[in-house]
């Protein structure tokens, strides 16, 4: 009788593995590619080296005004001397510890999300979406528990940017999900409302939304009734971004096969349970790249609040580089602001990639 014997598995050839294999496959697979590799390295050399020299090696780091910058490199002295203003805006110096506590809580609740081994990530996630914003609001605005009240006109800098972005993100996602579900609803009233809402907010530029909220809205409100400018801008941002979010989420909902709805129905889960337990977890996972895209766009769009006179980080930096002490440092100013934004956006992007890998259960259907 002939017995079936599978052949043994052999290791791959040496030339295709290891460092040499990698160099060969990725950098020098053909003469043309080798040429491109060399040219690429040369290009990096002629651009990166002068930039690093300007930005790091011959930069001036400390000083009290522009005269401290004499070495010809970047003048970072304005950043180091005005860093408090860039971070806290006009927040009273004696109360800055309240914002610092919020920053600390922020780091404590998000840093562990990057480590797989940390056990309480889920609870920490819920904390950062619910309790953390509440604590931060109480701490920063004050007026409770003997804290001095700090009006929102004094909020500013990077802390204001982060606040706007954080509240925008935390609110826009659930609103967007509800709108997306509503747009796919069987009930004509709900569906029509959601379509109108989404198409309206998506159809107007964010700048006009912000102008409307700060200039037009007070005209329509009854005399004496006036609510906070920051709150109005925030509501505008949330409405605007949740319309975008809704369409991203709807894309995910549409990608879920009908069989998943049917299986959930057949088990008797009903609409809300099947959405929350079966459909949305899969749909949201599918559109993580789109959701993070919207988050990043939202984060950068917060700079637009400067046109209605809110001093977020870009406006604070601009105010300083237009002032007498540091006049003309616009280039350094924009590089600094760009770096601030890039750090946070890159962090979000990395986290989303990690999340995608983690949630991948290897099922393509």
């Amino acid at each position, binding site marked *: 009788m002939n017995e079936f014997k599978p052949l043994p598995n052999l290791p791959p050839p040496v030339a295709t593995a290891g460092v040499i294999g990698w160099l060969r496959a990725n950098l020098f697979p053909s003469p043309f590619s080798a040429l491109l590799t060399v040219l690429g390295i040369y290009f990096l050399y002629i651009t990166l080296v002068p930039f690093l020299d300007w930005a790091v090696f011959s930069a001036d780091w400390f000083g009290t005004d522009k005269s401290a910058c004499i070495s010809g490199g970047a003048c970072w002295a304005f950043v180091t001397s005005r860093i408090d203003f860039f971070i806290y805006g006009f927040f009273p110096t004696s109360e800055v510890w309240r914002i610092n506590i919020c920053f600390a809580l922020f780091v404590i609740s998000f840093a562990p999300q990057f480590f797989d081994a940390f056990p309480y990530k889920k609870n920490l996630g819920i904390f950062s979406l619910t309790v953390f914003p509440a604590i931060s609001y109480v701490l920063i605005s004050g007026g409770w528990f003997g804290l001095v009240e700090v009006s929102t006109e004094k909020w500013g800098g990077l802390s204001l940017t982060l606040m706007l972005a954080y509240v925008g993100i935390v609110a826009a996602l659930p609103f967007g999900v509800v709108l997306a579900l509503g747009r796919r609803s069987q009930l004509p009233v709900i569906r029509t409302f959601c379509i109108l809402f989404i198409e309206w907010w998506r159809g107007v530029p964010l700048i006009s939304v912000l102008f409307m909220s700060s200039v037009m809205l007070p005209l329509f409100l009854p005399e004496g009734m006036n609510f906070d400018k920051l709150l109005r801008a925030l509501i505008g941002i949330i409405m605007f971004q949740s319309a975008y979010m809704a369409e991203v989420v709807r894309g995910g909902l549409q990608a879920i096969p009908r069989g*998943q709805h049917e*299986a959930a129905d*057949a088990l008797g889960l009903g609409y809300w349970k099947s959405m929350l337990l079966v459909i949305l*977890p899969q749909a949201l996972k599918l559109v993580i790249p789109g959701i993070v895209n919207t988050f990043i766009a939202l984060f950068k769009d917060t700079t637009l609040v400067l046109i209605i006179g809110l001093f977020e980080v870009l406006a604070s930096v601009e105010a300083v580089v237009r002032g007498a002490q540091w006049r003309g440092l616009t280039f350094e100013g924009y590089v600094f602001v760009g770096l601030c934004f890039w750090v946070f956006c890159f962090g979000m992007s990395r986290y989303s990639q990690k999340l995608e890998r983690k949630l991948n259960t290897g099922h393509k259907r």
Partner: protein
Amino acid sequence: MASTDFAVQMINVNKWYGEFHVLKDINLNVSVGERIVICGPSGSGKSTMIRCINRLEEHQAGQIIVGGIELTHDLKRIDEVRREVGMCFQHFNLFPHLTVLENCTLALIWVRKMPKKKAEEVAMHYLERVKIPEQMNKFPGQLSGGQQQRVAIARSLCMNPKVMLFDEPTSALDPEMIKEVLDVMVQLAEEGMTMLCVTHEMGFAKLVADRVIFMDAGQVVEENKPEPFFNDPQNDRTKLFLSQILNH
């Protein structure tokens, strides 16, 4: 009148997809414990018919009564019926983001309100019955088709249904895996479960069915016990169908 003697009763059921008349005057009484196999060419309405029983499809005329509850637009009743009727699909439709065990416990926890620990015991019991307990912590995407379908059967059985519907449970499987699924279904039939199976597995029909129903063009063409159905079909359409599926 609704009768509780029947597990499922369909009285003059008609259904249209837009202009297309898919089900024409379907009358079907399924007794408790009866095993019915439904066959017929594709597009004959057999899947649509069993999908009407748990309201995955809505019928436009006639009555469908499941376990004494008539299906109407009343969502409460639909949920009640769905709790009593289990269903297995051609493409399994397991929830890919949940493990095998979580797939089985989901409805127990959220529909039956069972504590998690108890739900897991129930789920393990049924996973053992479909001979797959060792896969409990894997995700559906890591299992073979036959294993997935057995998990799907276990998931339905966890809800302790009075009726099980099978919508071509083996037609998406590789030939090597059909037997493991059919074995589970035979075992289930032998334990007295009321079953309606849309399938082309005629061996299975001969082995366990109390009645075989042949459908074409939205109507029941012929129904009979398996032995006379296969050996002595009355209708020419049935004869043609059987000659095509049995002689290849």
